[in-house]
């Protein structure tokens, strides 16, 4: 069986480097000899590979990654609530209470995170295999891989964008910096790329999802996000430090009253595992319940159908009164004008004066009388 075990001394130096990085082994100084890499490889990786034999190197690596995933998935069901919470926190996810109804969701989330990380590992190792010994060839190889890998990168970017849309605003910014870091890590300048890679690998652990970390993007800029690739590493490292791990979306402002301190302490005791981040413990000031204890309720949609109808009816009622008033005023005016014109006939004027303002009906009756008297007057004039 040992025949199938490949002798790491036969590996190339760069291959050894990438494998060590994939297994999270601290790399020796850059200018160390190949033998040192081989020793490290034998020490760490040979131990892991004990018992895992396959004919092809790539299959072996894939099997390793797959078996790690399987192991993790098996272990997931054995995790206690607290352990699951801790593991999620390691991936940068601030989990809420893990209850019967939420446990399955959080397990799924963990699985997704681990799969995406596992994919990153596998891709990185495969890329390492494609590299050859000399630096010149590596540069050429990188460029070729960049162009060929762009298509594959596009698919992963689509996944990324889908995840980003679903997730909170922290998602895309985190992945941008992570991806740009991963892309920039494999730079032609070999002297400090390895240490940078190690630093970024460690930092990537703190972020929850970084697929596509070691893809080649020198020549092909797939999206605008990748344009940050060619910048020097230090500012990108700083932005990564500023990225806080994913926490619950801050929809409403957190209002902490000083009187809430005793409550806050008990909550802290309840959630000992949670990090003391600025927004870690969500003890918000409870806004008074609207509609209770005589407080006025402010509806967002106040215009219910009944109120609209009431308003329309009211609108109609008021003008009606005005219309009646105007009618009476006009009638009186007309009558007075008629009376003033007809100065000859005093009798009807006096008679009318004797019976002042008896209401609308009487006034109408008077108007009718005036009209009837008009005709005899006209006849008299003729």
């Amino acid at each position, binding site marked *: 069986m040992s025949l199938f075990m490949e002798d790491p001394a036969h590996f190339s130096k760069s291959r050894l480097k990438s494998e060590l990085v994939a297994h999270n082994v601290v790399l020796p100084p850059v200018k160390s000899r190949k033998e040192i890499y081989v020793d490290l490889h034998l020490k760490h990786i040979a131990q892991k590979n004990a018992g895992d034999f396959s004919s092809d190197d790539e299959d072996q690596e894939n099997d390793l990654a797959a078996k790690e995933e399987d192991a993790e998935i098996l272990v997931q069901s054995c995790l206690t609530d607290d352990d699951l919470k801790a593991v999620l926190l390691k991936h940068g996810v601030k989990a809420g209470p893990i209850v019967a109804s939420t446990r399955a969701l959080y397990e799924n989330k963990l699985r997704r995170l681990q799969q995406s990380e596992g994919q990153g590992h596998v891709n990185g190792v495969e890329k390492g295999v494609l590299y050859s010994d000399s630096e010149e060839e590596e540069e050429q190889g990188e460029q070729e891989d960049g162009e060929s890998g762009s298509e594959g990168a596009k698919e992963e970017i689509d996944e990324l964008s889908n995840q980003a849309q*679903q997730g909170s605003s922290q998602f895309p910014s985190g992945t941008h910096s992570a991806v740009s870091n991963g892309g920039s890590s494999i730079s032609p300048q070999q002297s400090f790329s390895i240490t940078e890679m190690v630093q970024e690998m460690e930092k990537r652990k703190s972020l929850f999802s970084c697929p596509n970390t070691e893809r080649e993007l020198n020549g092909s800029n797939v999206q605008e996000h990748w344009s940050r690739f060619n910048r020097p590493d230090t500012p990108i490292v700083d932005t990564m430090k500023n990225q806080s791990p994913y926490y*619950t979306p801050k929809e409403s402002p957190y209002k902490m009253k000083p009187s809430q301190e005793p409550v806050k302490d008990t909550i802290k005791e309840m959630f000992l595992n949670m990090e003391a981040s600025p927004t870690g413990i969500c003890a918000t000031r409870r806004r008074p319940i609207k509609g209770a204890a005589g407080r006025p309720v402010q509806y967002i949609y106040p215009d219910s159908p009944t109120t609209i109808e009431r308003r329309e009816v009211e609108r109609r009622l008021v003008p009606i009164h005005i219309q009646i008033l105007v009618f009476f005023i006009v009638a009186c005016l007309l009558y007075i004008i008629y009376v003033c014109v007809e100065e000859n006939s005093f009798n009807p004027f006096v008679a009318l004066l004797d019976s002042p303002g008896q209401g609308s009906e009487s006034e109408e009756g008077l108007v009718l009388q005036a009209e009837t008297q008009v005709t005899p007057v006209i006849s008299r004039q003729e």
Partner: protein
Amino acid sequence: MSSTSQKHKDFVAEPMGEKPVNALAGIGEVLGKRLEEKGFDKAYVVLGQFLVLKKDEELFRDWLKDTCSANTKQQGDCFGCLKEWCDAFL
């Protein structure tokens, strides 16, 4: 501003009280029945689940999908409805 349905407006306009789960935006007859079978017979129970998931959109959408096989639009409508209700009354 994105348009909200009449159902959304009606739900967000007042405290939910004992409204059935069908009253939630995005939850119709079929989804409502599925939720009721799982034990979520009132809107406030779904609200409880929403709050336990800390009002997180992704988790709540996943939960809806797993529980009653809601599609993306239905998930979004329900989430938005509950979120707005919480902003107004919680």
